[in-house]
């Protein structure tokens, strides 16, 4: 009996479309992430079913065309009818061939993009999405997906069985996707139900798992496309449709895993790989191998390898194991999972929490120079008491500036876990609590701090004081951590007022420069005054000496002149006069007037003759080349 497989193809297509649209709407309604991802699978399945249905129609047209032409040929009794040109004679066949040659690879490529892109986008979306299934709508959602599972499963099984028994290769892709969608609907229903019972993240985790599955399927599609280029082609053998995923088929029909694997290998290598001894051994002992694998998994969970720098908490049935609460670095034995479990922590690692804004360290274009006046992170301003003004009573509704200042703060606090039991068991998020405690202590210190002191010479001391305070608070909260370092290097005025602070510093420097210049000038003035005083005194001293010596000399000379004068008074005087005259006028210009006419007026031009001197200068000759 000839079945009309196109009808099954269209039913698969419609059911998948219904599951995709309905599943998406219901999943959105209930906030189920897994449901939304599962509906995407159904949507992709609908696409595949659509293409395979179209290909079925082409093949059916080709079959009818061939029948018609066979009929005609028998009626005419000649084969010349087909000799004009095959393409012109078999348009349906040509259409089918063109479809398989061009459209199917193009569609498979688009399918690959949809699968890979979908996996990537969904993964990103899931990273930001909240796992929040509406508690009042979970039952409707679970019921809808359960119904979908039932309908798709029955239809899928029926289609898959027909495809296998009657070898309808084009019915298989749609059937595989229908079965896979059925299972995914069941999983989505379980995820929603899991959220309602005890596993709040079940829905999210399932959605992530489905996302990974979609990625794996996209990889398979990619490899199928690549291998299609190199696959050995046997003439007359009809190929498997490119969009027919073996992985989807295997997941839809897990019992056919072995068959599918064998088919894949046979198809890819061009010979019966499934006849080899290794394959047969694998097929025979699969169950044992699976049991061994489970055994190995359980055995491996009995060993714990704690890395250096780490410590681990060992719990048996949820209780810390007496005497073995903390496992240090090395190899340890424990009961298998799920009896005993370990929780690792990096206790040796120096960890950091930051109070205030965080630097733009991740910004590659950030300047390597950090300046107060240039923003280098999202500012977080802290209040500081204003010591320049006493608190003022503000009037009601008055928005004048209160007696406080603001500081931008970026304080890294480095710490180490010293007591893992306290760190892990006392607080749900110890690191966050430490950050809160540190913020409180920073606020407390700043509200009464001297702004200038904390930004300059008191920074180191304030850092040490702050560290002690945070340590005390950490101990009081039994956090089991040691504060190693509190860095106040990131305290400065807000960017908006920072330039004014810089101006103050610049003016302070200028003030110092002016004072130093005046001091230098004062030193010079005093030094020259001292020198002048010294010169004055010494000149006076010299004059005194000269006076004294001259007086003595003159007295002595006078005493010696007296006998000579007494001996020849007039001659002595004349001689002395002429000797002195000759000596004194030696360098003088003298004019002796010998005129006897006393009535004449004689004019003297005593100006020095400068021109004559200049006129006597000779100009040197230019040098010869």
């Amino acid at each position: 009996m000839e079945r009309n497989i196109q009808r099954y193809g269209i039913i698969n297509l419609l059911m998948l479309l219904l599951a995709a649209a309905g599943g998406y709407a219901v999943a959105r309604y209930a906030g189920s992430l897994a449901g939304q991802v599962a509906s995407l699978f159904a949507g992709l399945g609908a696409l595949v079913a659509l293409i395979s249905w179209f290909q079925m129609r082409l093949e059916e047209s080709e079959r009818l065309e061939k029948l018609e032409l066979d009929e005609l040929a028998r009626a005419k009794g000649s084969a010349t009818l087909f000799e004009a040109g095959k393409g012109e004679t078999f348009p349906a066949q040509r259409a089918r061939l063109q479809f398989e040659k061009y459209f199917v690879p193009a569609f498979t490529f688009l399918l690959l993009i949809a699968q890979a892109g979908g996996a990537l986008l969904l993964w990103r979306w899931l990273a930001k999405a909240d796992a929040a299934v509406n508690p009042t709508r979970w039952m409707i959602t679970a019921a809808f997906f359960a119904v979908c599972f039932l309908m798709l499963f029955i239809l899928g099984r029926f289609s898959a069985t027909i495809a296998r028994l009657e070898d309808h290769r084009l019915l298989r892709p749609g059937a595989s996707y229908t079965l896979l969608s059925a299972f995914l609907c069941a999983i989505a229903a379980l995820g929603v139900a899991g959220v309602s019972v005890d596993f709040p993240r079940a829905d999210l985790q399932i959605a992530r798992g489905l996302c990974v599955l979609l990625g794996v399927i996209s990889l398979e599609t990619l490899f199928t496309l690549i291998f299609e280029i190199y696959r050995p082609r046997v003439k007359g053998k009809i190929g498997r449709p490119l969009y027919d995923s073996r992985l989807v088929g295997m997941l839809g029909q897990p019992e056919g895993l072995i068959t599918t694997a064998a088919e894949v290998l046979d198809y890819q290598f061009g010979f019966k790989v499934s006849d080899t001894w290794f394959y047969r051994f694998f097929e025979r002992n699969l169950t044992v191998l699976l049991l061994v694998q489970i055994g190995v998994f359980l055995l491996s969970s009995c060993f714990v390898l704690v890395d250096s720098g780490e410590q681990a908490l060992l719990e048996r049935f949820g209780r810390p194991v007496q005497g073995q609460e903390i496992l240090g670095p090395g190899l340890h034995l424990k009961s298998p999972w799920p009896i005993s479990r370990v929780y690792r922590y990096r206790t040796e690692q120096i960890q950091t929490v930051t109070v205030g804004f965080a630097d733009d360290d991740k910004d590659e274009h950030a300047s390597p120079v950090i300046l107060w006046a240039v923003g280098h992170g999202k500012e977080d301003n802290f209040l500081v008491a204003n010591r320049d003004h006493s608190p003022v009573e503000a009037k009601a509704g008055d928005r004048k500036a209160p007696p406080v200042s603001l500081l931008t703060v970026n304080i890294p606090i480095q710490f180490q876990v010293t007591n893992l039991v306290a760190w892990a068991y006392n607080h749900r998020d110890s690191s966050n609590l430490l950050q809160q405690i540190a913020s409180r202590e920073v606020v407390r210190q700043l509200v009464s701090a001297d702004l200038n002191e904390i930004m300059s010479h008191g920074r180191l001391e304030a850092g040490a004081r702050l560290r002690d305070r945070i340590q005390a608070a950490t101990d009081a909260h039994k956090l089991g951590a040691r504060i190693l370092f509190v860095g106040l290097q990131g305290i400065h005025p807000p960017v908006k007022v920072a330039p004014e602070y810089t101006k103050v510093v610049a003016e302070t420097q200028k003030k110092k420069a002016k004072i130093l210049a005046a001091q230098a000038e004062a030193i010079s003035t005093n030094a020259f005054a001292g020198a002048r005083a010294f010169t004055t005194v010494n000149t006076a001293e010299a004059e005194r000496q000269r006076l004294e010596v001259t007086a003595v000399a003159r007295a002595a000379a006078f005493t010696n002149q007296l006998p000579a004068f007494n001996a020849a008074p007039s001659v002595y005087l004349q001689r002395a006069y002429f000797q002195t005259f000759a000596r004194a006028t030696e360098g003088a210009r003298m004019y002796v007037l010998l005129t006897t006419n006393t009535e004449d007026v004689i004019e003297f031009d005593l100006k020095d003759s400068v021109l004559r001197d200049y006129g006597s200068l000779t100009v040197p000759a230019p040098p010869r080349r």
Partner: protein
Amino acid sequence: MKRNLLTFVIGGVLVVIFGLLLFSFQVRQTEVAVVTTFGKPTRNIDQPGFYWKLPWPIQKQVKFDQRIQTFEDKFTEDLTSDNNNLLTMVYVGWRISDAKLFFPKFAGGSVSAAERMLEGILRSAKSAVVGKHSLGDFVNADPNQLKFDAIENEIKAQVQAQLAANNCGLVVEFLGIKKLGLPDSVTQAVFERMTSERAVLVSKSQFEGEAEAQKIRSAAEREAARITSEAESQAIRIRGEGEAKAAELLPVFELNPGLANFDLRLKAIEQSLKEKSTLIFDQRTPPFDLFQGFATNRPSK
């Protein structure tokens, strides 16, 4: 036969695993749990360990973290008693004290629902306490006048009282002020005041520098004048001493005052003609009187 045994083993393992999942659960050291029977809390488990239960949907276990959880509220604006707008953010350490009470109060034990309730109570208590204190109690240059601890304790006491009244199975262990701030408009005003303060300091530095320099210069000039005047006075004294000493020898010249005066005149002439001089003599001046009677360049009439 062998294949049947294997199938039996695998089936057995699966049944055991499935059974354990259905009939048991573990509670960690960090957890407490409530077991509900047909939705009604029937067992409170506050010790870690392995426990049995009837399968879902008859019994269901709900686990909670019993450690202290930290929650911080929003940065909210309130008015202090001296009418300053102040933004505050506090953090609260809370834990579930009674899971059986906690579970039904918050939509099946939702921590986020509990935190929403806590936020409401906290905000109310915070506003009330902030309104009772002046800004100086929060920010003060004198550490002794700060009332941080008192404010925190007041907020905590109010929150605890409200939680006790609600009887919702959670307690607040600690509370701290995480952040203080000002509204944007006030922040701008503070920025302007800070800028003005700096401008005052800039002017102060500018004029102080000039004034200081001027002081130093005038002090130096005064000192220089003192040094110079002292030196000049000393020089006058020295010269006087020299003259006095020279005067001691004047009686020697009294032996022949005429000769002494003649000698002085000669010395004066010699001294005055040291520089380049132009002298005009007539023939009556000795020694040019020797030219008397010589023929001149112009015959006498």
